[in-house]
């Protein structure tokens, strides 16, 4: 192998559509178009899914399951959109590659949830009226590592903050977009 090649640095970036990869395989130098190499071997793990559920004062649950969903190298965003006749505040969970903790953002702010743990009785959304009625949508957020990982909310229900409710039912439209390395 020419010394020049051995001393090359690792690429910072390159255009896969115009670059060739020279591969030293069994002591022979071959070439492969970069885009073909990446298209063939790139992780086929993009995961998109959605669920719709009607909510009441009874417990309900919504979850998404996927191998390696909570692995260190995975990343995802899950949005829980709530509403009835109008749209209510959204709850969102994010995880980045390399992280072992997720973040949850609701109308109350941002909090952290460790993978493998759960965060109980979270105020996920709310609806209040000017005459003092307020009903929250509450639930337990869980990030479960098992044979198949899952992220979701359980015991989701309406919970009256005032004596009278502002709503008696609601919907949840949940969406996930994930990229899980080696999934």
């Amino acid at each position, binding site marked *: 192998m020419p010394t020049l090649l*051995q001393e090359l640095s690792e690429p910072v970036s390159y255009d896969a559509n115009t670059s060739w*990869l020279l591969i030293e395989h069994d002591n022979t130098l071959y*070439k*492969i178009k970069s885009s073909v190499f990446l298209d063939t071997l*790139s992780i086929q793990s993009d995961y998109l899914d959605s669920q719709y559920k009607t909510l009441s004062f009874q417990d309900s649950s919504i979850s998404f399951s996927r191998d390696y969903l909570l692995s260190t190298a995975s990343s995802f965003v899950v949005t829980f959109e709530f509403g009835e006749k109008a749209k*209510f505040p959204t709850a969102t969970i994010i995880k980045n590659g390399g992280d072992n903790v997720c973040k949850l953002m609701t109308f109350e702010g941002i909090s952290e949830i460790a993978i493998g743990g759960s965060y109980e009785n979270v105020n996920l959304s709310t609806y209040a009226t000017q005459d003092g009625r307020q009903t929250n949508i509450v639930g337990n957020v869980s990030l479960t590592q098992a044979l198949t990982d899952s992220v979701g909310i359980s015991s989701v229900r309406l919970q009256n903050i005032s004596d009278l409710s502002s709503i008696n039912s609601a919907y949840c439209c949940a969406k996930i977009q994930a990229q899980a390395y080696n999934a």
Partner: protein
Amino acid sequence: MDISSYPTLDVENVDLDQDLVFVSNQEYPSAKSVAQTLLSKTNISKQPSYFFRTVHLNIEPRQSRINFLTFLHVENLLSTDCQFICDVEFFVNLKQSFVSTGDGPLYDRKTILLPSLVLQKNFGESSISIQNYDSTNIIDVGGEYGITMSKIHYNNNDYNLKSLITTTVDSIRFDYLSYTQNQIFDTRINFTFKSTY
């Protein structure tokens, strides 16, 4: 180095842990890596990263001189090799004294959502597209721009929610978040960024 005569290799035959890969632009190899490292680097670097920011405007009217701001610093966030999309939601808790029966649906609701804002930038571009409730504007990275983020309508008046956006190649800053006419509504602003570099 003329590579035109090199034999081709089926991708399935590459030993990801052993084979050494040289990246060649046109004719000359310019970098090397073990195949798995190159692949991992490419995939990981193309994974999106997610970020939250939140700010709560909740002080009383006529005390609005405090500079409400939120700030995101991420390496290369706005470089030409990066793309991102940012969804911004606005949740308002209206005081009853602010509304009247003439405001229609607002009169009953205490919790309302204002029209969303979306910011996005594509790979290869150095400008940001900002879409608010009625228009799309393009701003250049590196500048400072006043924007209208959203609006609320009550008592027969529109009150715009304004911000001064300042960007560098690594950061985006939302400064002087405020409503027109010095009005203040109890507002939670949630930013969700998805960036890919």
